[in-house]
């Protein structure tokens, strides 16, 4: 076989092979770059989520915020016990307005509710509340 006769075709074929190889390489680079961008974006989002969760559920000011549950209701109606990061509170003779105020406050506090008991006695309510943080 006379290779010289097909020299031009061979050069063109080689050029095509090179172009195809470059195309595949470029494609691979683009997709791996996109993949790495997506994974770092996901890592950042996860990090931000952890920070947000920590900010809510490990709030350093939560102890002070919980104290407001005591101040919200007249002292004579409250029995309060706080040990470390746990609170046990009893409320007696609450009006429905006071009960609403108390429950709304509890719902908006980032604490773990261990127990919440509400009992209606006559026209007033008795509440037992246990939480931790």
């Amino acid at each position: 076989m006379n290779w010289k006769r097909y020299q031009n075709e061979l050069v063109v074929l080689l050029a095509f092979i090179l172009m195809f190889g470059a195309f595949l390489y470029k494609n691979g680079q683009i997709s791996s770059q996109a993949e790495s961008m997506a994974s770092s974006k996901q890592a950042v989002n996860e990090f931000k989520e952890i920070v947000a969760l920590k900010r809510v559920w490990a709030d350093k000011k939560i102890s002070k915020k919980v104290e407001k549950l005591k101040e919200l209701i007249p002292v004579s109606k409250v029995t309060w016990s706080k040990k470390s990061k746990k609170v046990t509170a009893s409320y007696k003779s609450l009006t429905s307005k006071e009960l609403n105020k108390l429950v709304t406050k509890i719902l908006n506090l980032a604490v773990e509710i261990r127990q919440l008991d509400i009992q209606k006695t006559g026209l007033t309510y008795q509440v037992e509340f246990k939480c931790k943080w």
Partner: protein
Amino acid sequence: MQQLLDEYPSLRSKMQRDNIATKYKRIDTVERKKREVMKSLAGLIFKGVTLTSFTLNEKNYKVQFACSDAKVAKRLNELAKKEKFNTSKVSGSDDLQIEGTL
């Protein structure tokens, strides 16, 4: 990412981040569920309905409503069913009991 790591050096370790995420995600899910249940139950109170007892702990909840008449009780039952609560009538009265797990 580097900026975040510099801002929160305590979260540098991936293992620590995973532990924190597991711990707080569990708390977040459970506590949000408790609050959602309480808000939904509060939404069931309308004229003629009075809350007589409510108990919620880490696993389940139970609530009892007193209704002024059978018509109110029926409407409350329908509303509770719509909210997908498990209801039961208290025999000999127009009271309605709702209980469920968290």
